[in-house]
Every structure is written in structure tokens, then in C-alpha cells.
């Protein structure tokens, strides 16, 4: 619960205005430290992630940027 908690492994979703595009920063909301924080986000594979899609943080670039990947939806599993 301290400020040093890493967001890696945290799940979240892409914000409405924060679609991730190749070469551009998106925005994700990630559940962390008991709350929800917004992080700037890049796709781990360099692809696109549409708004509202579920993501998981796989890497952390301090202070506010995370590398995320799309969580496969239940149908795709």
C-alpha cells in the first residue's frame, strides 16, 4: 500500500479517450494501491487497443507509463 507499489500485474481497462495506437500513448485505468489510477500506456506488441478493452500491465516505466497487453476476452478463451 505504499507509494512504491509496482503496477506490474495489475489489471485495468483503456479509458474512453485513451485508445492505444502504434507509436502513440494511450491511457489506461489500473487498479492499484486500493484505488484506481490513470497511467499512460503503450502496447507491448506495438499494436492497437480500443477503448474499454481489458488490459494487464506487463511492464512499468516510471513514473507514469506502463506497457500493457490486451487481456483475451472470455469468448476468445
Amino acid at each position: 500500500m505504499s507509494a512504491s507499489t509496482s503496477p506490474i500485474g495489475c489489471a485495468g481497462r483503456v479509458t474512453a479517450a485513451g485508445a492505444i495506437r502504434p507509436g502513440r500513448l494511450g491511457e489506461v485505468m489500473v487498479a492499484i494501491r486500493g484505488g484506481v489510477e490513470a497511467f499512460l500506456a503503450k502496447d507491448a506488441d506495438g499494436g492497437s487497443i480500443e477503448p474499454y478493452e481489458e488490459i494487464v500491465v506487463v511492464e512499468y516505466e516510471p513514473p507514469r507509463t506502463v506497457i500493457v497487453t490486451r487481456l483475451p476476452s472470455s469468448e476468445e478463451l
Partner: protein
Amino acid sequence: MGTAVVIVIAAVVVVPILLGLLFKVLWRVPAADEALIITGFGARRASPEGKVFRIVTGGGAMVLPILQKAQYLSLKADKAILEVEGVDQQKIPVGVRGVAIFKVGDDEQSITNAATRFLEGSNRGQMHDLVREVFHGHLRSIIGGLSVEDLIANRNELAQQTRDASNDEMQKLGLVVDSMQIQEIIDPTGYIKALGEPRAAEVKKQARIAQALADREATEREQEAEALKAQARRNSQIKQAEYQADIDRQAAISAQSGPLADAEARKSVVVQETAVANLVAEREEKRLDSSVRKPADAEAYRKRVEAEGERAARIELAEASKREVELKAEAAARQTELQAAANARQVELAAAAESKRIEQVGVAEATATEATGRADGEAIRARGTAEADAIARRAEALAAESEAVIAQQVAEKLPEIVAAAAGAFNNVDSMTVLNGAQGVTEVMNQLIAQAGPALDLARGTFRNGHGNGGGGPVEAAGKATEREGSGS
């Protein structure tokens, strides 16, 4: 002893209080929106990454007076009012008034960055200014990268541009942009207004059209309703008038029934009187018919028959005298011829006196011849005269006798003939003659005229019956009479 006890009790009571007070002074607890930054003794050692200060969030920490220094960094969100004038992507001058809401990031790195910049006590005002300055610049570039339309409507693009533009610098300051809003777009050139004009005009037009249509429709409906009302009123009035007319008519009829019955009665009386008058007139007419017209007709018929008989007699007489004249002329001619011959013989004898013998013979022969001729002429003349007289007398007698017989027979049959002719009227109840007594006379004349040929036929039959025994002249005279009768 008492004193010692007091001291002990005091120590027991006071020492924990003192210890508590000390702990209270030494133990620092940051609020939920604060981070405690501890610098000084031991702070460097506590951080594994060689940080120069300790950051405490959520929990608490002992702060040694003099050796350490503890300061709070607010993690509260703050806002910076932004007013920027710039040009958009299409170089249209545009002013933007917006607000950026930011806070210090919750992670350690952000707090560290922020702590090194803004920690000086009550330095929130400085942070404010800094952020605003940074955002002014960024916002200007963001406007330059967007069109006015995007500024108004495209929030995604605005957020993206904001991230792209301010990302690194915010991270340097340890800040997180929670929200960036454009509150107002100042439009000095009227571009936005002009942008909206066509649509506004269109909408206004549609609104006016709709209003006009609705108005028209409403008026139409109103007028239709008015027309229907008027129609209903008219129908009602017509019905009322009809009923009133019925009432009036019935009233008039009932009012007239008295006089009408009166008139009917009078009419019946007049009809009966008319019938009586007709009967009287008929009787009078019949009476006149039998007393005046029929005698007159019989008289006329009698006169005509008499006239015809007279005319036939005159014709016979004339023919007889014509024959007499002819015979006389013939006789005179013969006489003249004989005289001429005698004169010639005389002249011849006188001329031949030269010769005596011849003269004697001639004289004797002439005398003899003369005597013979004279005797012959006399005889002939006497016989012709006698014959003519006899014929004339016999013709006259025959004509008179036959006409008298015919007239007598016809007169005997006349009532039956006329009765038969008038019998056609026995089947006629009442004869209406349009031109009065003259008309009746005409009808009767026609009847008589129809009876005329019958009479002629009858007379011809009678005559033929008589003529069968008589001579040729009588028959010829009868035929002449018949020709004139059919010619009349």
C-alpha cells in the same frame, strides 16, 4: 513516606503522559492526501535506491527532532485556469479558455520528483503558476494541431494531443493530468458562428416551414370545421323551414277546406246545371232539326229536282228546234238550187230559141222536168216537216212523262233515304259542332250530297227500266240527262 508515595504516584501518572506527549511530537502521520517527506538522519540509509529522503504515505513515521526534518507534500488535485489565444490548424484566430486538473502522482517516483520541486512549505502557489505556464504553451500547440471543429467536438483528439504534448514535462514535475477541459472557445472572427449559420438557417427554415404547414393545416381544419358547422346550420335551417312549410301548408289546407268544400259543392251544382243546359240545348237542337232543317232540306231537294227536270226539258226542246232549223235550211237550199237550175234552163232555153225544133223539145222537156222537180221538192218538204213535228211532239211527251214518273217515285222514297242517311246519327249521343248552326247545315249538306249520287243512280235505274220499251231518241235524251246529272 507520604511524599515518596506521592512522587511515585505522580511518576506513574505523569511519566506515561510525558511519554505520550513525546511520542506525539516525534510520531508523524500523513493524511490520506498527503505524503510525508522525511530528510536528515537515517533517511538516506532507509532507501535502497540511494534516495536522499524517505517518503511515507498512508502509515506513520518517527521523526527525530533536530536530526530529521519532516515535511508534508499535498497530493490533492488542483486546477489551473488557462486562457490562451492562438490559431488553429487552418490558421483561424481562436481563443480558448480551459481548465487543467492535476495532482502529484501517487507513485514514489512522482512524489520524489514533485518533492524536489514544490516542497518549500506553502508552495502550492508556485506549483500552480508553473503548471499554468507549462499548460499555456502546451495548449497553444494543441490548438495549432487541431481544427476548430475538433476543438469543439473531438474530445478524443484533444485528450490524445494533451497526452502527447504534456506527457514528458508532467512526468518531470511528478504531476498527473487528471483532466483537461476546454470550457469556452472565444471566436473573434465569427468563424464558429458562420459555421453554424447554414445549419441554423436550415433549421430555422424547417421550423418556419413546419410552423407554416401546421398553421395551414390548422387553418384548413378550422375552415373545414367552419364549413361543416355552416352546413349543419344550413341543413338544420332547411329542415326547420321544411317543417314550417309543412305546418303552413297543413294550416292553409285546413283553412281552405271550408271554402274548398263550399266551392266543390258549388262546382257540382254548376256541373249539374251545365248538364241540364246541355240537355236542353240538345233537345232544342233536335227540335229545330226536325222542324226546320229537314223540311228545308226536303224543299231544297224538291227545288233542285224540279230545276233539273226543267233543264232537261229545255235541252230536249232546243235540240228539237235545232233539227227543225237544219231541215228548213236544207229544204231552202234544195229550193234555191232547183230555182237556180230552172233559171239556168230558162236562160238556156232563151238562148237556144234560134233553133225551133230543139227549142220546142227543150221547152217541153224543161217544163216537164220543172214540174217533176217541183212536185218532188214539195213532197219531200212536206214529209220532213211532218216527221219533225211528230218527233218533237213525241220527245216532249216522253220527256215529260218519264221525269214525272221518276220524280214521283223518288218523292215517294225520299223519307226513307233521308232516314237512312240520318240513321248514322242515331249512334251519336251528342254531336258537338264547332261552328254552330252553319256547321250543322254543312253536315246535312254533306249527307244530302252523299244521297245525291244515290238518287241519280236510282233515277238512272228507273229510266233504264222505262227506256227499254221506248225508241232511240228517248234513250238518247235520257242519256243526255244522265250525263248532265253526273256533271253537276
